[in-house]
């Protein structure tokens, strides 16, 4: 299995605060990886570093074998790694359709046109397809500010997928979404992802969601990775139970109540 993303001894210090300590991660092409950990454990810091938003204090990041250390988010996106955000990062006073069209145009070329119209028939059609794929076609002409949280997160993820990335990092895709909507949202996202053969890493607090979709789990605590492996193993790990998930019965897989 080819390694698509690799970090070596990744560290981030903010003065005395150690946000990330010696993170060694190797993710192979096609994997679906879940990242768990309580707030402040370093999950978003990890994503921010890997996508170039934050500069690591020490360490190395390799994407498809090439170093992306010090590259900007723009360059990293163009290299094939996209991400979504904890709080959906959209263009608030533009319509959902426009948001997608902008993402489309950006994916097509780093140099936008000065005179030919952005909202061409071709782009509108493609954007409408994506809206349908994500089930948010009803919000086509709504301003983002008028769109509910769940739909916003879907649009956020859709915009990340538009550029046909090789790897997708999702930062808490279901946060802010109600319990019954969570699975619906993840099903939609995972369907879209499977169609494009994308490697996925997503941060999630809901263990049910994690167990349902991933083949591997990384557990963060206080800036370190305390466990890395199959979901059943990680979620049964004593340290993980002490520090991250709590001692809850793992009823889903039927193995070992606490």
């Amino acid at each position, binding site marked *: 299995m080819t390694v698509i993303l690799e970090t070596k001894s990744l560290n981030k210090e903010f003065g005395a605060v150690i946000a990330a300590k010696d993170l060694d991660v190797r993710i192979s092409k096609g994997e679906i990886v879940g990242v768990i950990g309580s707030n402040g454990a370093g999950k*978003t810091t990890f994503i*921010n570093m890997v996508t170039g*938003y934050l500069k690591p204090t020490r360490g190395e990041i390799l994407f498809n074998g090439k170093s992306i250390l010090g590259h900007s988010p723009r360059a990293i996106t163009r290299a094939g790694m996209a991400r979504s*955000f*904890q*709080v959906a*990062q959209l263009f608030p006073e533009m319509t959902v359709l426009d948001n997608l069209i902008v993402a489309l145009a950006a994916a097509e070329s780093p140099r936008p046109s000065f005179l030919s119209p952005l909202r061409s028939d071709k782009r509108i059609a493609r954007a409408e397809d994506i809206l349908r794929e994500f089930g948010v076609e009803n919000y086509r002409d709504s301003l983002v500010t008028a769109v509910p949280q769940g739909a916003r997160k879907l649009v956020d993820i859709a915009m990340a997928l538009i550029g046909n990335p090789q790897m997708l990092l999702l930062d808490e895709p279901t946060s802010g979404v109600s319990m019954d909507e969570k699975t619906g949202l993840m099903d939609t996202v995972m369907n879209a992802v499977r169609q494009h053969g994308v490697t996925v890493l997503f941060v999630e607090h809901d263990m049910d969601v994690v167990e349902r979709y991933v083949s591997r789990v990384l557990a963060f605590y206080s800036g370190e990775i305390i466990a890395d492996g199959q979901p059943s193993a990680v979620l049964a790990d004593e340290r993980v139970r002490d520090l991250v998930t709590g001692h809850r019965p793992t009823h889903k897989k039927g193995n070992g109540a606490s």
Partner: protein
Amino acid sequence: MTSLLAVLIDGSIYASWLFLVAAGLTVIYGVMRILNMAHGSFYAIGAYSAASLVGWYFNNGIGPAWISYLLLVGAALVAGLIVGVIIERGLLRLMYGRDEILMVIITYALLLILEDTMKIVWGVNPYFAYQPYSELGRTSLGLLKVSNYDLSLVGVSAVIGLVLWGLLERTNTGKVLRAVIHDREIAVAMGVNVRLMFTITFVIGTILGALAGALTAPAISVVPGIGIEVIVLAFAVVVIGGLGSIGGAAVGALLVGLSRAAAVHYAPEFELFVIYGVMSLVLAFRPEGLFGRTLARKI
């Protein structure tokens, strides 16, 4: 050697004046996140108030010269207090919470209004109040003759700087103000009466501006428009030092004062250029200014 001394002296005098002018601006921005374009108008109001009061005092031969210095300061305090309270309570209060840039434009509108208000109150003819300036005479420093008034300005400036610093670092109100500077939301959550803090801060800023104008009045002829020239200088100083930092304003004032003095003595055509050149240079290397705060993570 003489010209070097001249540059140092001129530079320090100009720096003290710059600090006086810029201090109020940076305090208001630090606490309220408002870059007050009308700050120059407060300066002008202070100058007009002081000049008219002192002028009246001497024209009517009321009393001894030393009282005029008290009048200068008093005029600034009263004018600053009145204008500050009226504007903060009457106008700004209604506009809080808007985009920073919008606040700048709002204060620009305020500037336009105040400029004409001054014309209405004081007319367009110049006011003179030279007595406090000339009374103190001059001192010889080597081959140079320096006005004692200008020299004392350096002292006054330092005192005010220290008082401000003391207020912010040593008093409880100062600590509360610094809390508000750091994080307004949390300060509110902790029960700080932010509205009161805003009023206090704005009035302090206004008084400082008016004081700068009042203390300058004896050295100039007070005419319409003096506030407008002052703003751009104050901005440069405050931006160099870092918005919201009093220490920064002092350092910025020194930098600009000395650079300008050097320019005036050696290459006068570059005077204005130097001030903005220094600002652009500082910003090119330290976008937040010398003592400015870097911003927290957005995502």
